[in-house]
């Protein structure tokens, strides 16, 4: 298929359509409302479900109900809206429901602002809602990558029966870039569903729930979830290296839009004779700990520099990966300020 020029938010919407999303539930919030506007036309023309709910609290719970059918469903929102969805996200993780949630991040805390930020890292990666659970978290750095990761998110949600969150900052949502969609959506085979609610015809009733009043059963469920997260750590680590070489003095760790800005800075520094490499995590959970440790431990690296559009949230995970092996530094802006190279 030929390349077309698309805004990030619309490209994400179309990617979900291509990946077979049968239902989309939403509540308007800047800077991602274009997804809802696009889907309000696109889904009905395909005979699929579009619904604007009364709040993000309701939308998150509509997603729970919709996901219980076993059909592919998703929602998109931005930081304050994602906070309101944490209730349903925790319940979906506990009940092992697959769903895709996109957070086009804006500055916080509170109402914050509407400009791009990466300050929901902890919320996405460390839980957000209550209980022992994790989301599989992916972070694109271009509109094309947002398309690719959006399609992958639906597959991973089904593979692990777990909510998957794709986080992009406002820049990813609002920027226009040339994107290419595959002619045909292809994915690896998935196990047949034996949990979806289709009516108790010719079988015993099924219950989709996160309630286990017996502490032994609740603990069993928590360890079952834990095993899934350990499997994700083995199988779903994704990252990219840029100009990483034995000449590097500094290793930058950055993701999303920030990583892209760092690439330009690295190119400019190269002209000045300063060699810097970039390690870009694509999966934020699972975090590429071993891989960062390996790159940071190389003899030529003198400093590990974490760069974020937040006040050093991911840096805690980088520190955990590097384990004091090298001096650490941080550079960042937040609140909607996007640094220039």
């Amino acid at each position: 298929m030929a390349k077309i020029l698309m805004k990030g938010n619309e490209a994400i919407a179309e990617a979900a359509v291509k990946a077979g999303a049968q239902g989309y539930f939403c509540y308007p919030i800047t800077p991602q409302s274009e997804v809802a506007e696009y889907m309000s036309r696109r889904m009905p023309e395909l005979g699929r479900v579009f619904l604007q709910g009364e709040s993000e609290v309701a939308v998150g719970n509509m997603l729970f109900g919709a996901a219980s059918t076993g059909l592919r469903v998703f929602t998109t929102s931005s930081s304050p809206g994602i906070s309101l969805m944490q209730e349903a996200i925790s319940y979906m993780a506990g009940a092992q429901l697959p769903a895709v949630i996109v957070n086009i991040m804006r500055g916080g805390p509170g109402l914050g602002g509407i400009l791009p930020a990466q300050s929901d890292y902890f919320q996405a990666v460390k839980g957000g809602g209550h209980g022992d659970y994790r989301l599989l978290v992916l972070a694109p750095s271009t509109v094309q990558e947002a398309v690719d990761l959006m399609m992958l998110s639906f597959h991973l949600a089904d593979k692990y029966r777990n909510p998957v969150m794709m986080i992009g900052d406002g820049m990813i949502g609002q920027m226009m870039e040339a994107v290419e969609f595959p002619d045909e959506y292809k994915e690896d085979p998935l196990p047949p569903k034996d949990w979806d609610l289709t009516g108790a015809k010719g079988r015993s009733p099924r219950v989709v729930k996160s309630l286990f009043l017996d502490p032994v059963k609740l603990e069993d469920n928590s360890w079952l979830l834990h095993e899934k997260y350990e499997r994700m750590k083995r199988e779903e680590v994704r990252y990219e290296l840029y100009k990483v070489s034995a000449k590097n003095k500094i290793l930058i760790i950055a993701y999303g839009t920030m990583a892209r800005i760092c690439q330009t800075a690295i190119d400019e520094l190269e002209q000045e004779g300063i060699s810097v490499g970039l390690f870009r995590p694509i999966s934020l959970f699972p975090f590429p700990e071993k891989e960062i440790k390996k790159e940071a431990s190389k003899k030529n690296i003198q400093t590990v520099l974490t760069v974020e559009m937040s006040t050093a949230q991911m840096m805690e995970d980088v520190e955990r990966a590097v384990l004091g092996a090298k001096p650490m530094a941080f550079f960042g802006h937040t609140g909607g300020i996007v640094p220039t190279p």
Partner: protein
Amino acid sequence: MANHSNTIFSRPEALYDTVTHYCPGCTHGVIHRLVAESLDELGVRERTVGVAPVGCSVLAYNYINCDFMEAAHGRAPALATGFKRMRPDMIVFTYQGDGDLASIGMGEIVHAANRGEKITVIFVNNAIYGMTGGQMAPTTLANQITTTSPNGRNVTDTGYPIRIAELLATLQTPGYIERVAVHTPQHIIHAKKVIRRAFKYQVENRCFSLIEVLSTCPTNWGYTPGEAIKWLEDNMRPYFPLGCFKTPDVKEVR
């Protein structure tokens, strides 16, 4: 010799043969049975999904024999909406108490009703939070003593009890809304007809329906089962009048 016995009463297929966890004199069991009988009679048990609430009926799926989802407190109408929109061929009902529906879930029920979701809501009103130990609910009567209104509900501080059926009946969107009670055999017989009608409207894909059922809570009211029935009759019925507040058959019902 031919067997001349006829079965005139039996457990509905949609109800499990199990031991109840509900307190003596609680009417949840009766309401569960009316739901189960309705599913059986309409022949829809095998294409029905129930949504259990948070509250005493959180384990409704241990009694009603169909697929179920377990909702967060108050969010059952949102779950039901999500499911029904994806699978309009299936029958979806929520079963919610007054703390669940009229307090934390007020937003979800109003908007589900206003969108005209083709779901059936069984709203059990016993004027108190049961499972958490008898706290004041939005439906708690004026001067009623609860664990969080130890001197009786003071309406100047906490407002008056909310009449959900009347409130939802003000919406322009067509729907079926009726309040019934299950504290006497006559009332149970009528409640059964009403609950069955609510499911029938869904089978016909006609409208949203909510049936408010006045129910007893002897344990948290501090009465014997017999006293609780009298308390419902003497105190709840005058404030929560029984009757149909909205029907898809007639344009306006007053």
